[in-house]
Every structure is written in structure tokens, then in C-alpha cells.
């Protein structure tokens, strides 16, 4: 299996002058293609910071990050933007759908950025909406959907461009536990059927148990890296 993510000695410091917060302290991590990995840890442990750095949304203070063999920490903004568009899907805690676009258009958005032709876009978006269980709701705006349905749109948006990696930051935090479970089942199914690599952060123990690999962070360091059943 190919390496999708390789994080080497990544540190991230915030603040200026005398008050410096060490959000990450020398993190090393490798994710192989097709992994379904959960990151857990208390608030401030560095989960979101690590996801942001892997996703190219933030730059580390030191260390390197390779996505499919490309070192991204020193890439100029436009190239980094292209890697995010083509190789990484994002699922956010608060859904972050574009409110003026319908479910279909939200899922279609990145495909349009990629200049995928219209016929293919329609076919692919309809397929992923069907896969996430939103058939018939494609013309609804986010405000017309429940929280769980909105997160399904966000998942559809993340997987429609067929990325190598999907990063999900607390994807079940804003939905009830039953919806959270069904979202996790959906992501697990997509991982198994499509081979998409997932890395998500969570506080929810039930969610952690759905992962095949669990990484625990504390004070900006990985303190455990194991399968959930070994917890």
C-alpha cells in the first residue's frame, strides 16, 4: 500500500514574544492508502492543528508533510490550493456548506473548480448524493436540510472529486448520537467500498470504536497509535 500522508517531526507554535503555545511538538505520522483512522485527545491536544497542517490549511513551525510524496509545507499558495482541490477532501464540524448553493451545487462545486465537464459532473454528483442517502434532496438549500443531512452533503462534497485523503474534524460533534453513528457507518462504507483514506478527529468514544486505527494525542504529541480494540 502506498503512503498517502507522511508527517515528520512537525511542530507548531502559536503566539509571540514571551507567551508561546506549543500546539504540536515533533509529531511523526504515516497514513497508508485506504486507512480509516481516528485521532482522539482532550481539547488543546493538537488534533485540529495536525489536521489543518496535513490538509495544507496551516503551515508548521518546523518539520515536513508529504501528501502522496509531495512535500507541501513549502509550496506556494496557488500550488497548495491545487493540492487541496484535487487530492484532499474536507469535512468540518459545523458542516460549512455554502448557504446560497443547493445540495447538488455544493457537491458539484469542487468539480467545477477542476473543470470537469458538465455531463460527468452531473453523473458523479448524482451518484455520490445517492451514496450518502440524499437522493431526492439535491435541489434543497442547506437551510432546508437537517444537521445530519447537511453533514451528508459535506461528505458528498468531500468525496465527489475522488480525493486521495478525506480529513474530517469532529464530523459528528454537531449531530445527535444516532445520526453520528450513521455518519460514521457511511464514512466507513465509503472507505471500504471506494478505498478512500479517512483521517478524522473526535471526542466521541463510540466514534473512535468505528475506526480501524486510533491515534491519541496529548499536549501536542502522539502518545498512542493503535487499533481501537486494543484500547
Amino acid at each position, binding site marked *: 500500500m502506498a503512503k498517502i500522508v507522511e508527517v515528520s517531526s512537525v511542530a507548531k507554535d502559536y503566539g509571540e514574544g514571551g507567551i508561546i503555545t506549543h500546539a504540536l511538538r515533533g509529531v511523526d505520522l504515516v497514513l497508508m492508502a485506504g486507512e480509516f483512522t481516528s485521532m482522539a485527545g482532550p481539547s488543546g491536544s493538537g488534533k*485540529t492543528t495536525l489536521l489543518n497542517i496535513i490538509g495544507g*490549511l496551516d503551515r508548521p513551525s518546523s518539520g515536513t508533510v508529504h501528501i502522496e510524496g509531495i512535500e507541501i509545507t513549502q509550496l506556494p499558495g496557488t500550488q497548495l*490550493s*491545487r493540492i*487541496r482541490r484535487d487530492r484532499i477532501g474536507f469535512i468540518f464540524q459545523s458542516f460549512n456548506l*455554502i448557504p*446560497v*448553493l443547493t445540495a447538488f451545487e455544493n457537491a458539484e462545486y469542487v468539480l*467545477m*473548480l477542476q473543470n470537469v465537464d458538465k455531463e460527468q459532473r452531473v453523473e458523479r454528483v448524482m451518484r455520490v448524493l445517492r451514496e450518502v442517502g440524499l437522493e431526492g434532496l439535491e435541489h434543497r438549500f442547506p437551510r432546508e436540510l437537517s444537521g445530519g443531512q447537511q453533514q451528508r452533503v459535506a461528505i458528498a462534497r468531500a468525496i465527489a472529486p475522488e480525493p486521495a485523503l478525506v480529513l474530517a474534524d469532529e464530523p459528528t460533534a454537531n449531530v445527535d448520537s444516532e445520526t453520528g453513528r450513521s455518519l460514521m457507518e457511511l464514512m466507513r462504507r465509503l472507505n471500504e467500498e471506494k478505498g478512500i483514506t479517512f483521517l478524522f478527529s473526535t471526542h466521541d468514544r463510540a466514534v473512535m470504536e468505528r475506526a480501524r486505527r486510533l491515534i491519541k494525542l496529548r499536549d501536542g504529541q502522539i502518545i498512542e497509535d493503535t487499533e481501537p480494540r486494543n484500547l
Partner: protein
Amino acid sequence: MIVRLAWRSIWRNKRRTLITMTSISLGLTIAIFFTALVEGVFRQVVNEAIRMQAGHITLENPEYQTSPAVDLRIGGVENLRRRIEGIEAVEQTKLLIWGQGVANSGAGGVGVMVMGVEPSVEMKTSPLAQDIVAGAYLADSDDRMVVLGGHLAEQLKLKLGSKIVLTTNNAQGQLVEELCRVKGIFRTGSDEIDGYLIQIPATFARRVFGLGDDEATQLGVILKRPGDQAVVIDAITPMVAGKDIAVLPWQSILPEVASFIRLRRTSNGVFQGLLFVIILFTILNTLLMSVIEREREFAVLLALGTPVRQLKGQLFVESACIACLGGLAGMVLGGSLALALQIWGLDLASIMPKGVTISGFAVSTTIHANLTPPILYWIGGIVLGATLLLSFMPMRRITQVHIAETLR
């Protein structure tokens, strides 16, 4: 996608968008309406002045403006006017013979400006011929007849048919006295004109001032369209080559009117500029607010791989939509109001005192606007251009969005 996102985004906050569009629209309406109104007043004044005096273009002795004297005349005017009237843009030519003198009656003497005119031409062109309040205007066949202003008639205690003696110097430097009778009294609304001007037929004027049959002080050219002035001057200039004749625009003949208009245009421009700045601040505030409110959304779009230039493009389209819709509404509203005022006019007699003059020429109490395409294009273009320029400021904010911090 840019256009779809922009269009839906501007209608996300309908009230704010409508307020911004209304600001643009009202600002533009006021600017167009008042500019057309002021231009209408200027057009009326200029039109009356040039028709009463020596036209849009005047041919005269090159030294006449610096030292107006009766001996500074031009010759060969009949041939010249025939050729000039052959130019398509020319409506009419008119001859004027000017001189100064003293008008005497039993009640005393008053210094006057004597204007020799062709009555049939003046009847067609000059507003003064329509301002007769007693008696009648001159006829081409009249001899030793005058029309004079109401104030002058009061000063000299003259009535219709009264005798009046004109004393003046002719072109040969001799003292001349002519007995005339009052045929008509005019009131233009200008104290200067009504108290100082006497009109006499041109044939009589030539005799009084000692000018030949083919001579005049000025040959005035009235145009069908004032905008053709420069073209017609260019066409006339070769006709007088080698002759001692200057071809001048009305702005050189009536410099005080031209200066007044320039001054008022400038002050009007400053006033409208200030109004415009206030409106621009409203627009800038709205555009900035709409970006600040959506910073998280922009961060998401950037996270998904949207190029910064595409987001800038989206903001530009949003600004353009708001500016175009607001601008279009303002142009339609301002243009319609100005057009209505142009067609029907506005009678200000109840609030505007009679006798208001600009550089000695009476302003009519019924005001008509003058809406021209350049007023719409220029003002509309400036508003549109300025709004689009303003959109660059909110665009800069997008480049400052830190994705991770904004999404935290």
C-alpha cells in the same frame, strides 16, 4: 459559478442590498436631475443671449472686442452671409450695427447702447422681439423708429409715438443727431437691457453711424445645434482668409456669461462630488460588511481549493451587479424626471422673483431641463466606475483571510 454565487450572495441580505442600491440610485437621480436642470438654465440663458445678440458664432473686426467703436466694422457681409447660410448646420445669420449715444427727450438725456437690427430676422430669432409690452416691434420698412426698454421709457417719460433724439458719433467721427419716434416698448426682465438698450432698423442705423450698405459691426451665425460650433467655425474661417475679420465663438463675445457658466458648473461639480463621496462611503461600508460577515464562508471556499482570484472575481461581480442595478434605476429615475422637466418645464414664478439675471440676461421663471446623453453616460459611468474601484478594497481582505484561524 462565479456569477451564480455572486448573484445569490447579493440577495442573501435583501434589505442591505436594496439599501445600497437605493443609495446609488438616489445619488444618481439627484446628480442627473440637478445637472440636467442647471444645464437647462444655462441653455436658456445662452440661447436667449446669443439670439438677442450676435449668435453662436460672430464675425467682426478683430479689434472690436478690445475697443468697441463704430468705425471697427466688417464689409462684404451680404456675400459672406449667403455663403455661411449655405452651411447645413446654420439656421440663420443676422446683421448687427452697434453704437453708443445719448437718448434725449423732454425729460432729459440718458446714455444708451444703440443696436441696429434687421427687424424681420429679429422677429424670427430674438426673444426681445417677443418681449414687446406696448406698441409693436420694428418692421423692415420702418425709418426713424425705435423700440426701447421699459425702464428707459420711464426714465425719459416716453410713451408710444413720443419723440426721441439720438445723439451719437458716426464712423467718420462726426456728431450726429436724429429725431425718431417710439414704436414699441419691451421688457426682458433685465434692468440692464430694459434701461440701456435701443433698437433701430439696420438701414437707419447705417445712415446714423455712417456705414456702407454692405457693412455691419457684427455678422452673427445662429446654429441649428450648438454642438456644431467648432465645425462651423472651421468651415467659415477659410471664407474670411485674408480679410480683416475675426470668427469668434459666443464665449468670446459674451465672456461674462461663459465665465458664469464655467463657475457654476465647477461649483455644481464640487457639490455633486461631495454628495457622491458620501454615497461611496455607504457603498464601501456595505461591501466591506458583506465580506467581513462571510469571512468564514470565504475560508471554506479557499480550503476547498478555490483560487483567490476567483473569490476576488466573485466580489467584483457582486459589486458590479449592485452598481449596475442601482445605477440603472438611478439613470431611469433621474433621466425620467429630467425628461419630464425638459418637456413640461417647471414654473417657479411663485418662488423666484422676476428680474433674475445672469450677466445681464434675464432668466425665465419657467425652467426647462436639458438632458443630454453625455449627462447620463458620464454620471452613470462615474458611479459605476467608482463602485467597481471600491470593490478592490474588500477584495484585499480576502487575501488576508487565514483559513485555519477563521475556521477554528
